């Protein structure tokens, strides 16, 4: 499967009705393009300067490519997004090439039908061993933390391969990895964030604690999921 996130910052002065139209277009996309799976439009609740997250997935690169050539994509979604469109309402992203990220997976490991989604984009560096041990610590969170229903960490392979979903056409992204978690509720999310688990403390410190040497940069988003 291909897991995909589009992450948007709205232009200053973007009309609220146009924002609602974009959100509605994301929500209705699956009605027109059935290949698109598990679509959620989230309003980011973190301090990061992004407002809208659209998460979804495709069964295969072929399914993704049918989305790419579908008239709904060009006619409706691009209307609000492409730089040259008179109706564009999004701004150049403070995340740079973090506007579009994603990864490949064997199945819907990300799936949750309700709760709170936390997404952290990481730019990792350092040795493979440093990165590997850090990633394993992130992956293990769901097994040790109450209220965490899933914890997936994968390399961001999609951002540079957006045309067909698999073939890189851009230089490597500054965001090397995606960490996405599911929390059973906003309360369990808050309890984790304010708790004293090693990862929560590391995040609160700006990923400066021991074991986080691989973290060059990180940005956190979270939003409600209600399918």
């Amino acid at each position, binding site marked *: 499967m291909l897991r995909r996130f589009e992450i948007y910052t709205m232009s200053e002065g973007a009309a609220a009705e146009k924002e609602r139209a974009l959100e509605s277009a994301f929500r209705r996309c699956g009605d027109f393009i059935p290949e698109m799976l598990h679509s959620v439009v989230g309003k980011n609740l973190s301090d990061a300067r992004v407002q809208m997250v659209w998460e979804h997935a495709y069964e295969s690169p072929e399914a993704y490519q049918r989305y790419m*050539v579908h008239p709904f994509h*060009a*006619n409706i979604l*691009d209307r609000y997004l*492409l*730089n040259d469109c008179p109706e564009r309402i999004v701004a150049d992203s403070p995340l740079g090439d973090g506007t579009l990220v994603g990864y490949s997976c064997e199945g819907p490991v990300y799936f949750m039908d309700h709760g709170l989604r936390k997404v952290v984009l990481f730019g990792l560096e350092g040795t493979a061993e440093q990165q590997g041990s850090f990633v394993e610590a992130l992956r293990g969170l769901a097994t040790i933390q109450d209220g965490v229903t899933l914890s997936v960490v994968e390399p961001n392979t999609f951002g540079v391969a957006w045309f067909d979903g698999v073939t890189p056409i851009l230089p490597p992204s500054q965001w090397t990895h995606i960490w996405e978690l599911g929390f059973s509720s906003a309360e369990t999310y808050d309890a984790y964030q304010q708790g004293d688990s090693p990862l929560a403390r590391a995040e609160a410190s700006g990923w400066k604690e021991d074991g986080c040497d691989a973290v060059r940069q990180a940005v956190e988003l979270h939003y409600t999921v209600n399918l």
Partner: protein
Amino acid sequence: MAYVVDTAHVDPVDAQEYMRIVETEAVPVMTAAGAGFVSCWGTSPELGEEVWIETVWSFADHSEWNQIRKNMVLDPRWYQYSEKTARLRTGGTRRFFYAAPFSPLA
């Protein structure tokens, strides 16, 4: 054949500059990307109202548009002229049109 029709609303004093950017920057980028340049029209700037400038690009089908879209977004010049035209626009629309079978321009 299908058509992308961009209608830009601009202040009359900016109409000439908007068209200049379309001619000198947008047309080279879009045609290099694979789009056909069909037309650029403007309403009169002498009527005391906003000028509407309509630019029309053509493409064979949505598979071809997908390739054109890829080529244009990978071209740094597309971002440059898009920023310039956005600064001049006060509003507008983009719509895709598909010719009626009896249309002379099909």
